[in-house]
């Protein structure tokens, strides 16, 4: 049952006064304290104009380098000091280097138990023949996941900066350079039609063999991205959109990142709680080996390829 209070009673309540005070309509203590409203100082239009003009002139003259000699002197001194600072930095660093352990010496402090264990146990622990890939994806998995997130956030940030709305494209023509698309350059297209498959194949090879030979998800993904960029440069965006548009991009990227994240989360949680990791390590030397290395390489590779292409597309025309 609701109770309706009439307006006059309500006006006497504290809540009414409080809300009026909150919205600035009335002062709570208006009876208690005298408050005089301040008047605006009287100014004619001319004087305002003059004041603004003076202000502008002062600003312009203070920061005008050709006229203001003190500013010029200050900037020169500043520059000189900065160069001095940089030289001092280099000198300090070189002195530091002269005290550091010798290059190439096997007895250096950095060749300690950690790196020895990586080499001795790396293959057994991670199943990856390439110790570096095995290390960054298993021993230092958290770093690498963070690094993939750096790529992801950089794409988002570039999108904030360069993404153009579909309806705004017509308004400012310089933001998209569709006019600058290649005009059926025969040499480029012939070369691209030969090169692009090779680049793709090589990239896929590098990704799939990441745990066996040099390379891995990042380099292979960058190669595939470069192949996509070459394709776009030769054939234009319209042809590329047939197989790689924004939808495909989002699906591939989100799937890759989510799968990667799930693998990593599973790996972290089982590892920390002392549970065994159920991913088999496989036989060293085979493609289907390396435990979590191979799937992670594939996901990282597709994410990096998408990112590289996204950078290029965003730079070229402000959209995917």
């Amino acid at each position, binding site marked *: 049952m609701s109770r309706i209070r009439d307006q006059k009673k309500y006006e006497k309540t504290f809540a009414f006064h409080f809300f009026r005070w909150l919205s600035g309509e009335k002062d709570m203590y208006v009876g208690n304290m005298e408050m005089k409203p301040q008047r605006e100082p009287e100014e004619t239009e001319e004087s305002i104009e003059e004041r603004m003009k003076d202000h502008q002139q002062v600003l312009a003259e203070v920061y005008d380098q050709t006229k203001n000699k003190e500013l010029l002197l200050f900037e020169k001194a500043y520059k000189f000091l900065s160069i001095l600072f940089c030289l001092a930095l280099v000198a300090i660093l070189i002195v530091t280097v002269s005290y550091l352990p010798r290059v190439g010496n096997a007895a250096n402090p950095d060749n300690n138990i950690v790196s020895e264990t990586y080499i001795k146990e790396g293959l057994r622990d991670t199943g990856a023949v390439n110790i570096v*890939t095995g290390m960054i994806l298993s021993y230092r998995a958290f770093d690498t996941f963070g690094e993939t997130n750096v790529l992801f956030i950089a794409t988002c940030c570039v999108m904030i900066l360069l993404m153009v709305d579909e309806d705004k494209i017509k308004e400012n023509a310089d933001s998209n350079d569709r006019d*600058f698309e290649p005009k059926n350059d025969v040499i480029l297209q012939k070369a691209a039609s030969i090169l692009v498959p090779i680049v793709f194949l090589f990239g896929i090879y590098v990704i799939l063999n990441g745990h066996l030979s040099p390379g891995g998800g990042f380099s292979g993904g960058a*190669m595939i991205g470069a192949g996509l*960029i*070459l394709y776009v440069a030769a054939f234009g965006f319209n042809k590329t959109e047939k197989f790689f548009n924004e939808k495909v991009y989002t699906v591939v990227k989100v799937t890759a990142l989510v799968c990667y994240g799930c693998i990593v989360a599973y790996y972290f949680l089982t590892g920390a709680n002392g549970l065994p990791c159920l991913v088999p390590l496989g036989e060293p030397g085979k493609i289907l080996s390396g435990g979590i290395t191979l799937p992670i390489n594939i996901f990282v590779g597709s994410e990096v390829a998408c990112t590289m292409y996204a950078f*290029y597309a965003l730079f070229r025309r402000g959209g995917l």
Partner: protein
Amino acid sequence: MNIFNMILLGFLVVCAISVSFSKNLLNSILIYMSYSLVMSLIWILLESPDLAITEAAVGAGVTSVLFFVTLKKIRAMQDDGDREESHEQDQGPEEV
């Protein structure tokens, strides 16, 4: 091999300095590209093929392409701004 390594390192320093003093932006980007390639060679000499392959793909490849695209865009905006002033402004560089 030691001498070769030293020559490459010297080349790196020369590249880095000439980038700083080059007047033309396109030139400095090209110099930077060669700097990256030489860097990946050095990494092969230092027995780190993983780094070399990544630097060749990322540093010399994609980063340079991004630089070129940026330059091209800026030139395009420049041309838009003063198309009537000069027509012989150089074309945007070719990618790859």
